[in-house]
């Protein structure tokens, strides 16, 4: 059995660094370049607000060539910030609070022969919508019209992105579902396990470790957190015979405590993992960010490994037996506590990995990132059927696809709403979920 556990970890260790293949490309992040300019700035002069976590940003390119030194200002809510575009054309202005800001590009600072394209509003108003970063692009060049992608290629792009997002949700959802299946606990602190993975990855790489080391360590950290949680909290509670509803509320308390502990040490700002800016790969009319594609393959590989472990190994069989009926499993000689401990460890590692991939997908690491996808993870698990591992996988992929594809018609700030509505509607007609069994719903 230990060999199997070791195999899981070996697999996790081996697969995680693949995400990081991108670190070798020197892609200066916009936040990095602005903080560099902020240091040399006259404190009384115009600010680019690098100390704020809410940011307006974009990239300025003319026919693919980045433009440096173009002045962009953001005004609104009694605040004014300005910045110059960096060598890679990126710019970012921090603002003290979310709200509507007027962004203006100073056309006199554009190089000769370059002008804003037609129909490009300047100045324009941008409004924050829940996220701490908004992007606005100024298109340049004469007569450029907004590129009209064909519907099919947009759909394909969204579908690939959705698949990638769904698979990273599935990583966390499988852990949640295993925990639910074996202990009956609906774990509301799972989102914090997701956050912890990304935050640890950021912490380790901030210590100077290479991404190849930092990411596997973060996944190990997630596994250790799972082990610790079960050892210190959940096992003693199971021993006391605490009911499921009190345990659920305990998990909420844990979620709040961990979230604010992370905020305490990590701060409220959005940070980037190494290699967060990845080049976009072009396949004919379809363009997909490389990280999205790598993330898709990593999560696919990990889930396949988990599936093989569950279906083919003794410990996998034991896990499924405990999920089916703990007392019967115990009676037939399975060490239930050990299986549950292993499930927590695996769940923690998977959640941490999901968190790292989520940090690349959005992109960004923040203290509340796990909380933001917790409900989508729940939606995936509920859609597939609470407590079924493959249901969690199917449900998460459906949620991921739905979230991304719905952005073709829905406003981007409403994309999570669609998935949650679908979850509620499915509960109406098929409460046990897609792969769930009737008897589980009580």
């Amino acid at each position, binding site marked *: 059995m230990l060999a199997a556990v070791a195999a899981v970890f070996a697999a996790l260790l081996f697969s995680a660094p693949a995400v990081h293949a991108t670190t070798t490309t020197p892609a200066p992040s916009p936040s990095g370049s602005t903080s560099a300019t902020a240091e040399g700035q006259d404190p009384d002069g115009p600010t680019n607000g690098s100390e704020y976590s809410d940011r307006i940003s974009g990239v300025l390119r003319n026919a693919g060539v980045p433009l440096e030194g173009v002045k962009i200002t953001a005004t609104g809510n009694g605040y004014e910030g300005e910045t110059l575009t960096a060598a890679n054309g990126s710019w970012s202005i921090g603002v003290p609070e*979310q*709200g*509507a800001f007027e962004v203006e590009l100073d056309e006199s600072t554009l190089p000769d022969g370059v002008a804003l394209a037609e129909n490009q509003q300047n100045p324009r108003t941008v*409004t*924050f*919508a*829940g996220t701490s970063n908004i992007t606005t692009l100024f298109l340049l060049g004469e007569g450029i019209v907004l590129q009209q992608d064909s519907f099919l290629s947009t759909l394909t792009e969204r579908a690939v992105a959705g698949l990638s997002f769904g698979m990273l949700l599935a990583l966390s959802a499988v852990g949640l579902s295993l925990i639910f299946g074996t202990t009956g606990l*609906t774990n509301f602190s799972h989102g914090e396990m997701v956050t912890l993975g990304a935050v640890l990855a950021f912490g380790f790489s901030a210590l100077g470790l290479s991404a190849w080391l930092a990411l596997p360590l973060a996944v190990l950290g997630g596994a250790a957190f799972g082990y610790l949680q079960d050892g210190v909290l959940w096992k003693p*509670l199971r021993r006391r015979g*605490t*009911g*499921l*509803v*009190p345990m*659920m*509320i*305990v998990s*909420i*308390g*844990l*979620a*709040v*405590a*961990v*979230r*604010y*502990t992370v*905020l*305490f040490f990590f701060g409220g700002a959005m940070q980037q993992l190494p290699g967060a800016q990845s080049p976009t790969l072009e396949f004919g009319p379809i363009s997909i960010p490389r990280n999205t594609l790598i993330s898709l393959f990593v999560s696919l590989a990990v889930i396949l490994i988990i599936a093989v472990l569950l279906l083919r190994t003794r410990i996998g069989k034991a896990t499924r037996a405990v999920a089916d009926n703990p007392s019967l499993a115990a009676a037939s000689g399975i060490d239930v506590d050990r299986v549950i401990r292993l499930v927590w460890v695996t769940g923690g590692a998977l959640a941490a990995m999901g968190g790292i991939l989520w940090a690349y997908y959005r992109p960004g690491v923040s203290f509340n990132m796990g*909380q933001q996808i917790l*409900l989508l993870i*729940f*939606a995936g698990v*509920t859609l597939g059927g*609470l407590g079924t591992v493959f249901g969690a996988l199917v449900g998460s992929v459906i949620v991921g696809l739905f979230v991304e594809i719905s952005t073709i018609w829905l*406003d981007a*700030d*409403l994309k*999570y*709403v669609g998935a*949650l*509505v679908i*979850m*509620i*509607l499915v*509960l*109406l007609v098929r*409460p046990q979920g897609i792969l769930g069994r009737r008897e589980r*719903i*009580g």
Partner: protein
Amino acid sequence: MDFANIFLGALNEIISPTTAAYALAALGLAVHFGYTGLLNFGQAGFMAVGAYGFAVPILSFNAPLPVAVLIALGASAVFAVILGIPTLRLRADYLAIVTIAAAEIIRYIVTTNSMTAVTGSANGLSAFTGDFYALNPIPPGSYNLGPFAMNERDVWVRIVAWALVIVACLLVWMLIRSPWGRVVKGIREDENAVRALGKNVYAYKMQALILGGLLGSIAGIVFTLPRDAVQPANYGTELTFYLYTALLLGGMSTVLGPVIGAMLFWVLLSLTQGLLYGAIEAGYITFIDTSQAGQVRYILVGVTLMLLMIFRPQGILGNKKELAFA
């Protein structure tokens, strides 16, 4: 460090309108969870429905105050029915997930840019309580209530808020003593037994969900009054969890528990903030700054919630036999 001021500030929280709003919302949760056993994790959604249901009619079509309040209450009753239909026949954790999801749906919808004209998106709405303060019979001036000085608006909003709390407590107390209350408590203890007695469990659960939700939306209205503003960021899932902490502090199957719990919650928050800030300013604590001190308080809230649930689930006033779970 000015201990007197810190303690006075904390005491001031006992009668603040925000505490009253928490008390009302937690009382709604007591009806849901403490008495009926419904695990509603979307009380923040009910509060948001109340707040927006109140503010939007006033700002959008100049609705008079009573109409706005009725719209807010009606909207939250509709919200409760929509939530109840798919979930009340299912196990407790399904209701928990659906209610928390529904509360987030509400928050996303009022935050979306496409609704800015109606809901003000992320900035929210403001300046809609003119009618409410126009009803204020108290002449302008400064009033001293014990050591606390406040103006006529403060006094008026406190009187209204706490009058609502008292009325709501009386109402819930009478309802729970009535045959209706006995059926509802029976559902909490054993749903099937109540069904065997010929009661329509589904209908009773729905009524409890609506009643608690109405209390939640009244709380949402009260919450907006002193601020004269409603912002979507205030209605995240954390609000619900704080309400649960307040409810569990006081005792979830009691009428006065939520009120005392809300008071304690705010007094303790204010006290820890005052003491931590004071200690930092006086240089006793050097390793954290004031914004981190604010976060320490919420770490304590989470830990309190865990410890309460593990070691004293019945809260201060509660009776261990009267728990929604055995």
